């Protein structure tokens, strides 16, 4: 065993390091042992090494290759599995992002590693193996998973589960050349469409405002957007609101939508179904606005206003504006 813990960086469409990577590095530094290493895969990514160092990476492995310029599961899993075979790290982590969920399982299959997805806690067992906590059964239970054999333990971590904290290091940067034959890349990228939104990404957002069937129509959703923008929140929705066509599916929170864990989740005109809670039940503070005093959400929220959302929300937006203007 190389006695190293790796965090493979997740990058945004614009090639920046995602917050979840810094969260994973910070948590690994606090909870795990061994040399903490960052891994950068991509094209022209070497320049990002110091940022991983700023959060505590002592070493950064870089595979800088044009062939990794466009993300592909084949390219990333080939690069990462070659690195793992060469250096035998004990633990390999990444964010539970769309990419992490794609190439981590493939890499685990190739190197024969165990993989736990969407960890919300990291630790070590008595025998020094990785343990993680993760949700099971639609957020209704938390499992402690312990890795048993000596193959590398792999895990993806849930965005927002950990705090990014700086611990500046000047990392040793190791440039690795991995042979990725062009014909092993099957994926042909046709188009990358950016969402034109100034709001934060739902899964990474620290604040979320969501609307449900109670919004009654898509014309009313600007009420949600204005409140969200006032407090710098992402905008979400229940499945009923999505199914009714008020907003697109990408906004859906819940069992069959996005899983989020912001510090504040404001649910507006949402009844609080089990399936909705599967997606947002781990939020730190839950606020509900609903006209029905018997709505199930009121039995599992922190603050509840009983009232008509069309009257309450505009006043709430105004009140937040006043508050934030005062600083």
């Amino acid at each position, binding site marked *: 065993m190389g006695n190293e813990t790796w965090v493979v960086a997740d990058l945004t469409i614009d090639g920046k390091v995602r917050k979840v990577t810094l969260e994973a590095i910070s948590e690994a530094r606090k909870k795990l042992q061994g040399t903490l290493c960052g891994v950068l895969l991509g094209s022209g990514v070497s320049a990002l090494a110091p940022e991983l160092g700023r959060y505590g990476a002592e070493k950064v492995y870089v595979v800088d290759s044009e062939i990794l310029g466009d993300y592909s599961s084949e390219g990333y899993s080939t690069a990462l599995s070659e690195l793992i075979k060469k250096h035998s790290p004990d633990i390999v982590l990444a964010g539970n992002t769309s990419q992490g969920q794609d190439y981590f399982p493939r890499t685990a299959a190739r190197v024969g590693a165990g993989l736990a997805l969407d960890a919300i806690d990291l630790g070590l067992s008595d025998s020094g193996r990785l343990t993680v906590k993760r949700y099971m059964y639609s957020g209704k239970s938390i499992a402690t998973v312990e890795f048993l054999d000596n193959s590398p333990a792999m895990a993806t971590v849930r965005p927002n589960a950990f705090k990014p904290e700086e611990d500046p290091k000047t990392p040793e940067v190791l440039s690795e050349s991995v042979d990725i034959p062009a014909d092993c890349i099957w994926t042909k990228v046709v188009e990358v469409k950016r969402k034109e939104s100034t709001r934060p990404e739902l899964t990474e957002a620290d604040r979320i405002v969501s609307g449900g069937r109670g919004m009654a129509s898509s014309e009313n959703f600007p009420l949600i957007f204005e409140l969200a923008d006032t407090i710098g929140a992402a905008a979400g929705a229940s499945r009923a609101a999505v199914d009714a066509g008020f907003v697109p599916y990408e906004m859906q929170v819940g069992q069959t939508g996005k899983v989020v864990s912001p510090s504040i989740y404001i649910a507006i005109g949402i009844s609080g179904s089990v399936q909705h809670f599967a997606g947002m039940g781990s939020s730190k503070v839950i606020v509900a606005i609903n006209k029905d005093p018997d709505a199930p959400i009121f039995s599992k929220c922190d603050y509840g*206003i009983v009232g008509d959302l069309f009257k309450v929300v505009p006043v709430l937006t105004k009140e937040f504006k006043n508050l934030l203007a005062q600083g």
Partner: protein
Amino acid sequence: MKTYVIVRQTPDTEAKIKVNGDGRSINSESIKWIVNPYDEFAIEEAIRIKENHGGEVILITMGPARNLAALRTGLAMGADSAIHIKDESFASADPYAIAKVIAQEIKNPGDYDLILTGKKMIDEETGQVGIHVAEDLGIPQGAVVTKLDISDDRKSVRVQKEIEGGQVIVDLPLPALLTCERGLNEPRYASLPGIMKAKKKPVKVIETGDIDFSSIGLSAEQLGEGGSRYAVTKLEVPEIKRRLHMIEGMEVSDAVKELVTALREEAKVI
């Protein structure tokens, strides 16, 4: 187009989760089982592809006897046949072993064009088996797909995936494995004639004894809990204490003031 769909059963989403005395497994006695919702999108999509391009849809599952119900549901929706790899101990195997056995079943005839499955199981909340199968078969994968179009020459598939901050559209050569996300389609309900017909559709049952473990590089033990690379050592039903601070029976402006003050001073989140 010959499409395999990997399906499994999960507890009904409303199911109450009770932890067994061992503290690490759930009590499944009173649980109602359903087809994993994401696998339903996969079944529906496979049937639509058959309707547009011809061919056949084969369901494949691995797990205990009750999984037959999931296969019957898929057959009633319109799949043609099913394969049930049956063993009660499979439940605790890790994706690595499960995938090897499933891949072997698909590899044997070998003449497939597409494999579909759900993006994840809603009980274990992982979606690894499909991707492991793709690796075992050495074919391309597309994970978490919201739209797919088979090319006219049926040699490739155009796939749309949601990513953070946007969408990507990629082309993959066939055969490929795709994991399905909600938004891909609206699964149909099985019709009464469909349910009647499903009873006569062939279900091939494979028992552990029928599996040639050495040829797939596994031992029989690896299929059980002992062969898993990790174990669930504890299962808890979390008790998140909520404040349950209700604000009612006052003017809207007062209610909002109370909320905002509490968020700032008590919860300290704004």
